[in-house]
Each structure stands twice: as C-alpha cells, then as structure tokens.
C-alpha cells in the first residue's frame, strides 16, 4: 500500500522542491547564519520529507515544515559533531536558543529572506564574477555545471568562485540584510545590474556558436519577477519590462539555421504578444511614477517598437526623444550609436551617417563591431559601396559571434556583385 502512495508523494516533494527550495534555503541561511550549513540543512530536510511524508502525510504548510526540520537537523548535527569540538557546542546552543518559533515561520520574514539573499549575493564587496555565480547558484538554484555551461567556463572555476564568495561573506562579516534606506538606491542598482548581466548573457552572449542562451534569459526574467514582487520600485519594473520586451522577439531574431534577422526584417507575427503586453503595461506603470531611470527608458523604446505592426509604422520621432532622455541620465557612446540609427530612419541615412562618423572620430567605439556594421549599412543605402565594404570588413574583424560573422559575410558578398 505504501508503495502506491509513495509515488505520487515523491512527485509532491519534487514540486515543493521546485517551487519552495530557494525560499526555504533563504530562511535557513538567516536562522543558521551560514550558507554551507543552510545548504546541508536544506538537503537533509528534503531527505526527511521523502522518508516521512508517505508515512505521515504531506504537512499543511510544507515550507514551514521544511524550515523547522532543516533547522532541527542542522542543530542536531552540530551537537553530534560537537563531541570533537567545544566551539560547536556553544554554536548549537546559541542557534537553538536565539530564535522564537513564531519568528521562524513568520510569512513576512520569509519573503524578506529572499531579498536578504539577493542583496547578500550581490554585495559590492564580492567580485563581479562571484556575484553572478553566487546569485545563479543560491537564488536561482542552478548547478555549478549549468552556470559554467552558460558562461562558457569550466565547472571547477565556477565552484571556486562560489567557495571564495561564501568564505568572504563569512570572514569579512557581510551581513544577511536588506540594505538600509540610505544605501538601498545604490545597492539596488547593483542587484539590477547583476540581473541584467544574466539576461544579456542569455540574450546576446559575448561569444560562441549560438546567438542566444534561452535558459539564462528565463532565469533573469524569473529573478526580475521576484524582485518586482518583493520590491516594486519603478526601475525594478523597468528592468523586468525591458527583459520581457526583448525576450518577446526571440523567435523572430534568428532563422532556423541560427542566422541573424535584424529588427526591420523580423516576421512580427512571431513576436510573443503576451510578453509584449506584460512588458508594455509595466513600462507604463514605471513611467507614471516619474521616478524612472535608464532601464525604464530602454524598455519604453522597446515598447514603441512593439507597438508598430510593420517596421515602416515605427514612431522614430518618439524613439529619438526617448534616446535623448536616456543620454541625459547617462552619457554612453553605445546609446548615441543607437540614437544615430534611429535618426537615420527618421531623417535619412546621410543624417545618421554624420552622427556615427562623429562618434567614431572621437575613437570611443573604434573597436565595437556594431558601430562599423551600422556605418556600413548606411553607406550601402547611400550607394557608397566601397566605404560600405571597408566598414563591413572592419566589423567582421571585430565580431566574435558566429551568426553575426555569417551575417556580415553575407552583406559583403552582396556588395561585391
């Protein structure tokens, strides 16, 4: 009889693991004050669930059960090991005495724990590589192998980054806290930056065979949703909107063979309308706060593209206006380049080319392949084929992604006939 019940309960445990294991971990880190101890406790709590739930039934609140079981197992484990180490006796006693049971299960505290975990993983005292790896490991629950594959590094390298980050959290006394109100804007900027890096590595990898790495983008969107749920600040909404709007074009961005399809050539029927609508609604909400920043503005630009049924219907004037606002908040040659491309669409290729040549003459984007390919494209449209060929060649020397290189080679071939 237990065999018959055991199978569906195993599925229940798996589901709870998927939906709740990160929350349970976040709370265990607070209760136990140590990442490694908490991970071990999480593992033991789920092992106990597999053993006991078929016999005793699934508890009414599985998450609370897992937290208190994990905490108990960790303290029990410390006590057993403490026969050999007097310091562990003291630690076990302190952990046992320090928390009231209702504090452990307070639902608001548990939500806060997830924020504590995110802010701790993205602490500015940790090196950027470690912030990324630790966030993906602890907040998203990715394995070190999956993180290594995503960032085209070796698993031992990722594992080492995570070990070092945990050691620094412990040794330097990085607290498990949501930053104070005074520090929150700066610290939130860093968290959003880490999420955006994860997204970008999935959406536009810096090198490799494939144009996108879907899993990472999905993880970043999940993180974005979590942040909006926990901390609904305008820029948090802006970042989630930006990711949703970009991601909605994924199916249209490349051919079945993995070749690049530029925005104006994309089959817009392939765009994911549901994500676009969600992204657009978030942009509107963020803009109406009047406290928005660069992520919201970039999302707004993506939303204007999303509104156009055909490339020819794009409201370029509005896009240029949004780029102007973006440049007011951060001077960036890449933003200037994108603005120049929009100007070329509104006022013709010659106007765009003047702007791009200005940027290139300042030397800032001299090694950026997209600056040269944008220049080449405008020269091509103006019939200045020799200049177009030279710029495509320069772009090809600099491009590192295989599909982008194939795209540039195709353009070069078209021009030689």
């Amino acid at each position, binding site marked *: 009889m237990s065999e018959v019940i055991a199978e569906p309960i195993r599925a229940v445990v798996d589901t709870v693991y998927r939906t709740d294991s990160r929350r349970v971990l976040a709370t265990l880190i607070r209760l136990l004050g140590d990442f490694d101890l908490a991970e071990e406790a999480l593992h033991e709590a789920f092992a106990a669930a597999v053993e006991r739930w078929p016999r005793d039934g699934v508890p009414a609140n599985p998450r609370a059960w897992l937290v208190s079981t994990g905490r108990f197992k960790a303290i029990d484990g410390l006590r057993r090991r403490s026969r050999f180490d007097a310091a562990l006796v003291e630690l076990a006693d302190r952990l046992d005495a320090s928390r009231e049971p209702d504090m452990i299960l307070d639902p608001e505290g548990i939500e806060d724990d997830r924020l504590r975990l995110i802010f701790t993983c993205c602490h500015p*005292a940790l090196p950027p590589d470690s912030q990324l790896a630790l966030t993906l490991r602890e907040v998203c629950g990715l394995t070190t192998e999956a993180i290594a594959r995503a960032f085209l590094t070796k698993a031992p390298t990722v594992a080492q980054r995570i070990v070092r980050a945990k050691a620094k959290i412990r040794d330097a006394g990085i607290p498990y806290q949501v930053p104070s109100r005074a520090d929150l804007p700066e610290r939130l900027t860093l968290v959003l930056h880490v999420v955006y890096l994860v997204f970008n590595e999935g959406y536009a990898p810096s090198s490799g065979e494939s144009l996108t790495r879907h899993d990472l983008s999905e993880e970043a969107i999940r993180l974005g949703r979590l942040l909006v749920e926990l901390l609904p600040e305008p820029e948090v909404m802006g970042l989630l909107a930006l990711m949703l709007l970009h991601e909605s074009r994924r199916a249209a961005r490349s051919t079945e063979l993995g070749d690049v399809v530029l925005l104006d050539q994309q089959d817009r029927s392939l765009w994911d309308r549901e994500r676009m609508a969600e992204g657009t609604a978030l942009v509107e909400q963020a803009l109406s706060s009047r406290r928005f920043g660069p992520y919201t503005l970039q999302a707004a630009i993506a939303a204007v593209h999303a509104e156009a049924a055909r490339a020819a219907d794009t409201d370029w004037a509005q896009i240029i206006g949004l780029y102007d606002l973006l440049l007011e908040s951060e001077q960036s040659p890449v933003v200037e380049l994108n603005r120049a491309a929009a100007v070329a669409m509104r006022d013709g290729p010659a106007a765009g080319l003047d702007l791009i040549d200005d940027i290139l003459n300042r030397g800032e984007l001299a090694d950026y392949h997209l600056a040269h390919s944008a220049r080449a494209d405008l020269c091509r449209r103006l019939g200045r084929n020799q200049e177009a060929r030279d710029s495509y060649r320069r772009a090809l020397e600099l491009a590192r992604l295989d599909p982008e290189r194939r795209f540039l080679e195709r353009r070069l071939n078209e021009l030689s006939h």
Partner: protein
Amino acid sequence: MKYLCLIYSDETQWQKLPEAETGKMMGEFFNFTDSIKASGHYLGSNRLQPTPAATTVRIRDGKLSTTDGPFAETREQLGGYYLVEAPDLNDAIRIASKIPAARYGSIEVRPVWEVVRP
C-alpha cells in the same frame, strides 16, 4: 567584529598643501575620531610618518637585510589607520566612508583575524 581601516593616499599631495589646509584636515580627523569614540566603534588609531621614514626589514637565508622605504612603490601610500569594532561589514563600510581621507584617498577595510591562543 574588529575591522582595520587602512588609509591610503598620495602623501606628496599632503606635503604640498598650505598649512591652513592641513590644519583644517587635521581638525576633520579629530572630529571624526571623537564621533566614533562617542558611538562606541573606536578601538584605536594612529597617523604614520611618511614613507621616507620607513625601513623594510626581511630575513632571507638566515641573513638580515634592511632597506630604505616601503616594500613596494605605489601611487598611494599607507598613511594611518583606525581599528574599529562593528557588528558587520556594512557598518564598517559606513564608518570607513566617513574617514576624511575617503574623499581624496582610499580606505581598505580588513576584518581582523581573531586568533584564539590555546
């Protein structure tokens, strides 16, 4: 936890300042020291003589070698320190950011290794 806040700055810049300026800076340091004494963070502090006053000592193959100046030539030199007691790194960073030298030099915040002697 104990944190050592090491103050690094370009000591040649300090030497170029007019006396009125250095007096004002010293006043700011004294005020800061008083404030962290009042808040209970202060454990100790010292200003160091500039690096020309330094001597580097090492023993290699059992032989003493004594050389002039600091071990490494760097743009910013160690010029002093505060030893503080703080509950965590965020608090230590908050204190370090108020050291007057943070505005022209840099502060390295290092947790002290607590060694328990048997």
